């Protein structure tokens, strides 16, 4: 396939840039167009709204944050949350990164021999599932009352 002119221009300016095939370029154009149109589609209602919204005077309390009719007490950012959320996030992080490695394995699974493929998947998943067993034994999945009420 002959190299189109503007690709050559890119390659000359940025040395060693990977040559982009035409279909890959089209992929990116589609994604970018959808991103832009998605943003416009989300933003246009706000512009329309700006023209037709009611203009009214606000009371002192109109722009308080909603708290069941009481006066707002403090910032929500000062509150603390159960450490359990953090532990769940930690297991997730370990898992998600590992599952990412499984995707290429799945895509190339037909190319390896039967014994090698099965054994390697078993080893990988076996180690991975130990993470759940570990968290389970350590009691991440039991939500105990951390503060004892007498």
């Amino acid at each position: 396939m002959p190299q189109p002119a503007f690709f050559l221009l890119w390659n000359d300016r940025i040395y060693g840039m990977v040559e982009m095939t035409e279909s890959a370029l089209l992929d990116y154009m589609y994604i970018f167009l959808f991103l832009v149109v998605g943003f416009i589609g989300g933003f246009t209602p706000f512009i329309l709204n700006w023209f037709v919204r009611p203009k009214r005077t606000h009371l002192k309390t109109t722009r308080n944050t909603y708290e069941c009719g009481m006066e707002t007490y403090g910032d929500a950012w000062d509150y603390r949350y159960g450490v359990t959320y953090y532990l769940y996030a930690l297991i997730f992080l370990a898992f998600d990164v590992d599952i990412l490695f499984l995707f290429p394995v799945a895509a190339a699974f037909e190319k390896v021999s039967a014994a090698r493929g099965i054994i390697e998947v078993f080893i990988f998943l076996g180690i991975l599932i130990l993470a759940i067993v570990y968290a389970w034994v350590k009691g991440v999945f039991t939500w105990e009352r951390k503060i004892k009420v007498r």
Partner: protein
Amino acid sequence: METISILPPELIRMLIAVIIIISFLFLNAIMMGYLERKIAGHVQRRPGPMEVGFHGILQMVVDGVKLLGKELLIPFNVDRTLFRVAPLLSFTPVILPLLVIPFSEKLQARDLSLGLIFIVSMGSVNVMALLVAGWGSNNKYSMFGAMRAVAQSIAFEIPILLSMLAVVLMCNTFSLKEIVGAQQKIWFVVLQPVAFLIYVIAGVAETNRAPFDLPEAESELTAGFHTEYSGMGFSLFFIGEYTNMFIVASVATVLFLGGWHGPNLPYGEYLGVVWFFLKVYFLLFLMIMIRWTYPRVRFDQLLNFAWKYLVPFSFVNILITAVLVKL
């Protein structure tokens, strides 16, 4: 010079695709809103919306106009940037998965070779939008809702990925078109019933729908992460949620229910879209029925259900698949 002569028809195709898809997105949100209210009504033995148009069919249009005319109230102590960005962040990425979904053999905007991963990654942006909305609102309800939403979405993302992996192990491709093509003879729901079940359960949870709608549990958190949003801000979250439901259902259709395959129609490569939409809306109907039938679960039950049952089961499912594929 070859490219430049090819590009203009491709550009026109691009524009047509994006216009069709974004109008379909709004249409789908309107239809789903109407369907949900109507089904909810009939489940609870009342007629649902009846006043505007035949059997209330124009109710959602009227509601849309009403929401468009509402004042955008921004509370005084919010993080203004994050508060304004959050609805856009929730709405913008939901259009992208529709780019790769094959509605029928020839009706697909673009067949990316990494389509499945593309959908998963764009779906994950939604989690960040919820967190940004909850954090930016500086409201205790929003904050709790956002924390729950993040914990729940990340917990149920792993069963979803694993059940997708089971399918990818069988057909060795991420391109959605080729995955559907591989189901010419037999749908993967027959070969992978466990993965299908896990995917549907985790998909309902991933879209924050009842019985897993803890992030916006009305009785305890008012409206969860979008408590402070009014008018258009709220409706963008709403449209985003319905589009996410559509995406989850159509990915389930593509992976397990054979996409556009069905009894032969004339012009099959275009009219396969009929079978596709029938399957998708059947799944969506199922999701709505689940919402109005089952009570809400408790939050620790929800997270532990994902980690103690769904993840181990999908692991075992993958191991069995890996062995059976090689036999």
